[in-house]
């Protein structure tokens, strides 16, 4: 088997985010998160539910690249409005969103860069991030880890982080649950007393210093930072043959 790519390591780290979710709607945005989420479903989290990204739940796991396969088996109707009713506001979802900026408490921005009234760069807008983060498990993916993304203060808060959630009180924040951030350099969580972001593992070939020098705030770093685990042979086969034969993830995350 050819050498394992950084993108493949990320895909497996993303799959791990969904490991203990049981019967939950798995939503993942971006190519590598899509592959990672589907890898989880095909391996250790078979009960995950997913949609075709349009308006229907599906009971098969389609690839993200390669020749067309058989049509997915469609099950439940899930148009946009029912998506809110069925999964978001009923808390039965774990979403992985991208972050253009993220701070040490997991406040995320993909709305715009610069002042909101006249941004330097308009991005996606708030989308569903404010509600998602208050209602169900959320993780983030950053394919280009740098101190421009991991910042002291995000320009605009679209996804709510731990400090702001805590300020809302226990009741309002009772479903708030920022699980992990996976970047091209490592995996991060918030398993610290004040929910400040912690370096949970570095990807093979990445040093702790690489992470620190590319991060614009002080990370919590334990004495021994483990390495992110490598994909198993079966996971590599699923990624390369079943999910992403064209290797699109390697264009999103470069070695």
């Amino acid at each position, binding site marked *: 088997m050819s050498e394992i790519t950084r993108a493949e390591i990320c895909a497996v780290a993303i799959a791990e985010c969904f490991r203990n979710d049981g019967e939950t709607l798995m939503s993942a945005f971006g190519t590598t998160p899509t592959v990672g989420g589907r890898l989880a479903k095909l391996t250790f989290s078979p009960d995950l539910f997913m949609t075709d990204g*349009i308006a229907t739940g599906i009971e098969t796991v389609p690839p993200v690249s390669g020749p067309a396969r058989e049509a997915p088996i469609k099950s439940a109707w899930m148009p946009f*409005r029912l998506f809110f009713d069925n999964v978001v506001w009923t808390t039965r979802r774990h979403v992985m969103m991208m972050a253009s900026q993220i701070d040490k408490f997991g406040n995320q921005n993909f709305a715009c860069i610069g002042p*909101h*009234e006249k*941004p330097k760069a308009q991005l*996606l807008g*708030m989308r569903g991030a*404010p509600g998602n983060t*208050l209602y169900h498990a959320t993780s983030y993916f950053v394919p280009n880890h740098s101190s421009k993304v991991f910042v002291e203060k995000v320009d605009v808060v679209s996804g709510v982080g731990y400090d702001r959630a805590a300020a809302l009180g226990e009741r309002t924040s009772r479903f708030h649950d920022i699980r992990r951030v996976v970047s091209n350099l490592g995996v991060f969580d918030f398993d610290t007393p004040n929910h400040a972001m912690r370096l949970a593992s570095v990807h093979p070939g990445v040093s702790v210093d690489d992470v620190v020098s590319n991060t614009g705030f002080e990370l919590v770093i334990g004495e021994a930072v483990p390495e992110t685990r490598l994909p198993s042979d079966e996971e590599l086969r699923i990624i390369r043959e079943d999910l992403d034969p064209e290797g699109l993830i390697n264009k999103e995350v470069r070695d």
Partner: protein
Amino acid sequence: MDKRTTEREVVAELESGMTIGIGGWGSRRKPMSLVREILRSDLQDLTVVTYGGPDAGLLCKYGKVSKLIYGFVSLDSIPLEPHFRQARQAGSFRAAELDEGMLQWGLRAAAHRLPFLPVRAGLGSDVVTVNPELRMVTSPYDDGEELIAMPALELDVALIHMNRADKLGNGQFLGPDPYFDDLFCHAAKRRFMSCEKIVASEDFQKEGSVHTVSINRLMIDGVIEAPGGAHFTECTPDYGRDETFQREYAATAKDPDAWQAFKERYLDLESEADYQAAVKNR
């Protein structure tokens, strides 16, 4: 009863300063023939409420919008709407950016003739700072939770596009998603529905189950037969998105000359029929 009308008659009824809700979602089943007619008009200073796609992009590009109420603006296959971005970055309109769920709740409050509906989504995010007019409400029950009082998004006019309609104003979607079109209609004083094809009422169920006739005639004041009216957004199963055309449209944002040429060729025309002919002959 016959509610058939035309894009021109509908837009003649609109006034500058109005609040207009536009159905569809992103670059999907948008009432584009009505949007194009607004572009041809001298309407200005509009407040537009939308799950935004090229409707928002074009209306902003033309300077028709003073306030946009939205959760996102996207062309789907092109995630960021470049004309909307340009107008945003120029600061050329007031951006009332909400969580997508709040938008739904605002429309629902208006639909139910309520002043507001309580919503948790938005709390803790900058939705509350960039929309300073939002007020809070405290639950009167034992939980005492403080929530956002999402104000009713009352619309002067709703514009939607359906696959089929009858001349009475019943409307049918044949694709997978009704979007929020019914809520837009319920939230508006005047409601106009364009459609791919006007059919006899008894013919609806030849193409879809009774559940697909999601718009009833109490919700509609005027019906416009507009084949290709959602172009270049998708209108499945009648047609998919015209990706080539959409790419051409998106590319013009970067290049004023290309935009001018695009505008002259497709938009600065006399009528929707001329637009459809220009699209067909390209």
